[in-house]
């Protein structure tokens, strides 16, 4: 028993170039800029997000070059402050938050549930334009001198004392928030209302559960940072004292409002990656996922509990001890569903038929690096140790292990996995595995020394440091250069493969899922006939063992 969509008759070979698909269905700039096809919009996002990734990465390169010398090798301290701020703002708001949802999510959500498009295709296009406008404001801020408040915009520095382009940056972030909201809204409605016949909730791919949970956070959290930034902007313009203690404001209140979104935001950044992981691990172990229900519910649990822990960013800034107690306990709680996922993926690997294609290399890297990042979070959730570690490189390493070792690797794994579906071409496998290895090595060399640095007490966001930390800093910078090269390699071969890569069939991995039942690249309407689903997700036991 299998899904009933058969877009091509067996034995009938239609050359890929001559079949009409979403890429060649219409030509011209207008057909792309005014498209409502979720797949084209996903590619529009892919281009923009990649650009922003390299802009943010450029600032990181400058920072690591600067930190080769204890007194700073490259820029003045004021400029260094701008570098880490712009790196943070761009990477968080313009790369990590939209990355998987707006690219892979937009492309795959309708296909995985057997729908022709999202519920609101025009809102989808609007969300991309809003993203572009927000990015434009922020890039303008970069060009007009940058911002130096840190991506966290803490008051009263950001509201009263900083002389940099706070308002354009804040405006850019404010505007882009609405892009996220529209994406989340679209996904929630689509997943609730447009599943194919027979596709019950517990037959959905876990990627869809992850996108759904992420969308909940988009919807509930983003408006709060929007209003917070709005208030910050008003404070900066009118100086009325909302967050400025000199005139009666409470800067901790800003932090409450900021972190109410920004903590769930970090789960926005990791949950989609976890969704990708479930797809990759099952396909490359040829096995059903272990404990489907647990993994599905853990996504929802992460989304919900993530809203209860934001105060752990404020243990040392002046929050009451009692609030700190509560947030600490809840922060330990939120680790549990993440751990459930890691256990279940590992159990899925056990006795699986594992192959080490590039997507799987990224997936395996994710499991190890995310676990390390997550475990180090426990030291930070614990009040006493956080006093020592807060504001040091330990935190920087912690979140980079999760964001880069976790989220970015999952993103790259997903891009590689679904690349043949998106483009109809295969990338060169040798280069892909090589790049994955380079990225893994470069990443660990960059960030593991930072755990040690933080433990030894080197503060974060400092342009200078004591000379005894130099060796570790140089190691980290060396790693960063390797990592940078590692990221450039896929950029090159993926672009190359669009023109010169071998044609990929509908299902080069032999994977399960409705998206693999369509041609590569898919036609604009995805499915000629809406499929009827009769089997569970990841039904790999029935596969004959050979690739499609």
């Amino acid at each position, binding site marked *: 028993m299998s899904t009933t969509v058969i877009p091509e008759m067996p034995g009938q070979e239609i050359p890929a170039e001559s079949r009409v698909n979403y890429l060649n269905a219409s030509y011209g700039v207008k057909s792309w800029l005014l498209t409502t096809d979720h797949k084209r919009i996903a590619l529009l996002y892919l281009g923009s997000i990649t650009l922003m990734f390299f802009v943010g990465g450029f600032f990181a390169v400058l920072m690591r070059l600067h930190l080769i010398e204890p007194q700073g090798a490259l820029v003045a301290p004021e400029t260094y402050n701008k570098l880490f701020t712009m790196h943070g703002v761009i990477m968080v708001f313009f790369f990590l938050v939209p990355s998987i949802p707006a690219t892979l999510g937009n492309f795959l959500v309708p296909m995985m549930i057997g729908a022709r498009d999202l519920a609101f295709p025009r809102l989808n296009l609007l969300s991309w334009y809003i993203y572009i406008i927000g990015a434009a404001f922020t890039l303008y801020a970069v060009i007009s001198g940058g911002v130096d408040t840190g991506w966290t915009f803490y008051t009263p520095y950001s509201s009263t004392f900083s002389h940099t382009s706070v308002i354009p940056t804040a405006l850019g972030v404010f505007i882009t928030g609405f892009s996220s909201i529209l994406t989340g809204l679209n996904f929630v409605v689509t997943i*609730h209302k447009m599943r194919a016949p027979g596709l019950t909730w517990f037959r959905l791919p876990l990627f869809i559960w992850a996108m759904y949970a992420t969308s909940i956070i988009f919807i*509930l959290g983003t408006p709060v940072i929007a209003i917070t930034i709005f208030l910050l902007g008003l404070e900066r313009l009118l100086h009325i004292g909302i967050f400025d203690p000199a005139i009666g404001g409470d800067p*901790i*209140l800003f932090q*409450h409002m900021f972190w*109410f979104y920004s903590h769930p935001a970090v789960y926005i950044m990791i949950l989609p990656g976890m969704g990708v992981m479930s797809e990759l691990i099952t396909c490359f172990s040829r096995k059903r996922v272990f404990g489907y229900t647990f993994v599905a519910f853990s996504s929802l649990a992460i989304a919900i509990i993530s809203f209860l822990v934001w*105060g752990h960013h404020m243990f040392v800034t002046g929050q009451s001890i*009692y*609030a700190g107690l*509560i947030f600490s306990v809840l922060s330990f709680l939120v680790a549990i569903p993440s751990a459930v996922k890691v256990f279940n993926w590992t159990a899925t690997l056990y006795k699986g038929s594992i192959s080490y294609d590039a997507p799987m290399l990224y997936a395996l890297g994710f499991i190890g690096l995310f676990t390390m990042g997550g475990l180090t979070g426990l030291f930070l959730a614990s009040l006493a140790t956080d006093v020592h570690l807060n504001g040091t490189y330990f935190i920087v390493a912690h979140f980079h292990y999760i964001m880069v070792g976790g989220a970015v690797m999952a993103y790259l794994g997903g891009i590689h996995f679904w690349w043949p579906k998106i483009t109809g071409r295969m990338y060169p496998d040798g280069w892909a595995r090589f790049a994955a290895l380079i990225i893994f090595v470069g990443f660990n060399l960059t960030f593991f020394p930072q755990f040690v640095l933080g433990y030894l007490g080197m503060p974060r966001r400092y342009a200078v440091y004591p000379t005894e930390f130099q060796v570790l800093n140089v190691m980290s910078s060396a790693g960063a250069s390797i990592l940078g090269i590692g990221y450039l390699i896929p950029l090159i071969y993926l672009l190359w493969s669009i023109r010169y890569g071998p044609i990929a069939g509908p299902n080069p991995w032999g994977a399960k899922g409705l998206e693999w039942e369509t041609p590569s690249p898919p036609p604009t309407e995805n499915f000629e006939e809406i499929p009827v689903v009769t089997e569970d997700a990841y039904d790999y036991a029935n596969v004959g063992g050979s690739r499609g």
Partner: protein
Amino acid sequence: MSGHVVPVKTYLGIFVALLALTALTTAVAFVDFDKLHTGIHLIDMIPLNTVVALAIAIVKMLLVILFFMHVKYSSGLTKVVVMAGFLFLAILVSFTLADELSRSWTPEAGAWNTALPTILPLLRGLF
């Protein structure tokens, strides 16, 4: 949104109720309910005027949500979505307020229970 047609009479009745509640809340604002004097600090600090005003506002909101916005005749999903919005707003307000109000409750050094020195001021603050 099931296509259920609410009769005009119901709408008019809700409208009248909403106007009456508005008049009530305005009138009651001029009456000083003061506070309770039970001796328990946690209860005595409740500002009754505020509670009454908010209670009336919540009733008005429910009338609009259930009848004008048809949630009474809507699916369970709609009801869950609405409740989720208010729940998370409540989380934002309550946790933030808890911090702001408890910031001045400083723990004592050398308390009789050194394992949990922060509990005494917490209890004192509450009761």
